[in-house]
């Protein structure tokens, strides 16, 4: 029977091309606008490490002086000092842990035709790679011993490997970073988690760093730190604070494989804060947080407010389009009262007519959905032309493509409910007599 309804729907829509066109246009515009903004929101608020983000936690402690502290309300610092970072790292209380910060290093190869250039870099510790599930095209990361030994080893990204080594396996080769020679031990494969969750102090959405070196070696070489530095008391200035300065400038991430381990780690942070307070380093009572990746992104309001606003407005526009579609559909269905009366007389139940009319709404929705999809693709292309940091990420993935079609179908069927119900209530006797 549904094949029959589909055939009738197609005939009906062809019979009134202008009305059909207006309905399709209304659906397509609404869907196009809402899916463009929803796709941007989806990309920006997506899980950067699906399958892993639940076990990755960002510990926060509060080493500041007591000024302005409101227990229970004041949020702890968003980064850690060198001392706290090293303490937490060496405590090894998590399944994995990595201390890190970002910077920019000059790359100048010996005997190369390449002009010197700067590359974003991450100074980190060994667990960074297994903890974040970084895939390798060649080689591997470094181990804890390399951290301890301040080894001059480096992991580079595939684009940098292509640029400097022509895409060949460069493990064992030397790359000159900030004037010092580093041995390449690994080349990262396709890895670009967005949002850039592990360091939101630089860019929320960006291409990942091209160079990864041990934090210890980066300090030996004097590689510049870039990003946020917050100091208090007699905290010093400078781009890379003194290791003893009361300044937070490093990120510390942990992997805690179960909720029990997370609870235990939180307790550890409380004990650590108490201990540091007893030692006189901390002045505040323990003020700790332990957020997983998605909680951390949410806390930092990573998704720009204007994107949320645009999405809300676009869905409002979709609603207006749907209201218009309801009106158009009502006009279309009521114009067919005579035909519906005949069908009733010939044995169609109200339910059968309702299904037939909803099928027609669905066909309008599908055509409108395809139109909306094309408009959304055009809209996303326009987004990519914008100077926003997230612009390059605005692509429609298969899930959003399916969402587009389902939303269009659902919206049009919803828009067809009232007109179809009204049309089915027509008294067939009146229609048959007045026809």
């Amino acid at each position, binding site marked *: 029977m549904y094949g029959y309804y589909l055939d009738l729907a197609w005939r009906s829509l062809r019979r009134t091309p202008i009305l059909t066109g207006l309905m399709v246009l209304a659906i397509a515009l609404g869907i196009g606008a809402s899916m463009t903004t929803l796709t941007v929101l989806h990309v920006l608020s997506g899980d950067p490490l699906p399958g892993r983000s639940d076990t990755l936690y960002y510990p926060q402690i509060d080493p500041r002086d007591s000024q302005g502290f409101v227990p229970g309300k004041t949020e702890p610092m968003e980064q850690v000092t060198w001392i706290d970072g090293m303490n937490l790292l060496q405590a090894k209380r998590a399944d994995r842990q990595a201390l890190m910060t970002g910077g920019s290093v000059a790359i100048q190869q010996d005997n190369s035709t390449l002009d010197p250039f700067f590359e974003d870099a991450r100074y980190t510790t060994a667990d960074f790679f297994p903890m974040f599930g970084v895939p390798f095209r060649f080689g591997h990361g470094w181990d804890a011993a390399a951290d301890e030994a301040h080894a001059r080893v480096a992991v580079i990204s595939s684009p940098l490997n292509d640029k400097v080594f022509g895409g060949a396996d460069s493990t064992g080769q030397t790359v000159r970073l900030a004037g010092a020679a580093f041995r390449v031990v690994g080349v990262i494969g396709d890895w670009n988690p967005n949002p850039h969750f592990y360091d939101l102090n630089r860019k929320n959405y960006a291409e990942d760093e091209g160079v990864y070196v041990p934090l210890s070696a980066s300090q030996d070489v004097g590689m510049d730190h870039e990003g946020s530095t917050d100091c208090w008391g007699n905290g010093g200035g400078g781009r890379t604070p003194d290791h003893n300065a009361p300044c937070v400038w490093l990120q510390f991430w942990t992997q805690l494989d179960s909720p029990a381990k997370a609870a235990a780690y939180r307790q550890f942070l409380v004990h650590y804060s108490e201990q540091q307070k007893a030692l006189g380093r901390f002045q505040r009572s323990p003020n700790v947080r332990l957020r997983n990746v998605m909680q951390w992104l949410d806390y930092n309001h990573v998704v720009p407010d204007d994107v949320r606003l645009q999405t809300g407005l676009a869905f409002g526009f979709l609603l207006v389009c749907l209201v218009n579609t309801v009106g158009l559909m009502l006009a279309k269905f009521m114009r067919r009262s005579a*035909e519906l009366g005949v069908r009733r*007389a*010939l*044995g169609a*139940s109200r339910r059968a007519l309702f299904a037939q009319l909803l099928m027609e709404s669905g066909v309008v929705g599908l055509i409108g959905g395809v139109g909306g999809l094309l408009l959304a693709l055009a809209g996303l292309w326009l987004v990519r032309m914008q100077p926003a940091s997230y612009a390059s990420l605005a692509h429609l993935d298969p899930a959003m493509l399916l969402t587009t079609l389902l939303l269009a179908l659902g919206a049009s069927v919803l828009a067809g409910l009232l007109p179809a119900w009204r049309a089915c209530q027509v008294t067939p006797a009146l229609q048959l007599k007045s*026809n």
Partner: protein
Amino acid sequence: MLKMTHLAKVYRTELVETYALRDFNIDVKQGEFVAVTGPSGSGKTTFLTIAGLLETFSGGEYHLDGVEVSQLDDNARSRIRNEKIGFIFQAFNLIPDLNVFDNVDVPLRYRGMKADERKRRIMQSLERVGLAARAKHYPAELSGGQQQRVAIARALAGSPRLLLADEPTGNLDTQMARGVMELLEDIHRGGATIVMVTHDPELAARAQRNVHIIDGQVVDIAEEPRFHAHAAQATARHG
């Protein structure tokens, strides 16, 4: 076949109650050809729409083919309409964007028949009304008489036990009306029960029995045609 007892149909507004049918009694036997006549507004069409289960009634009883229909829900009424009743309307009521074949197909679709069986019945019905060659034509391409023949084919395709015709020749010229009437008579001779509402005394005279309605009540049930000017002709035709 069709029996209404003390049937009433009341249209109520806030201020008035209007009886379209009042204490309405009729009994149409299987195989009868009954003409229902009466002045405009007498309740003929209301009777026909209630008989065809297109409207509900306010009181009394209505048995159709032995089934009391007042308590049936919309699905059951629709099923009875589809399986037991064929409608022929004054305005033909063909669906304009379906061709002849597809128009006749409509009631069969709602019966859930297989495609082969539907096609066989459609072509059989169209052959019976002499329009098999026009199966692919659209209603707008046919004369009024041909359109009414298609409507009759549509009514016949489901092999209904009762044919309800509402002024079937009202929109046709004399020659076309004669052809349609002869077709109805032929169908009746084949054993169908036909109830026809008409203003036309000449048509009524060709029915087996006349029922006259005034002010929503049956006032005269004549076994013989009540239009005596044509009685001899009608009697001769029906034997």
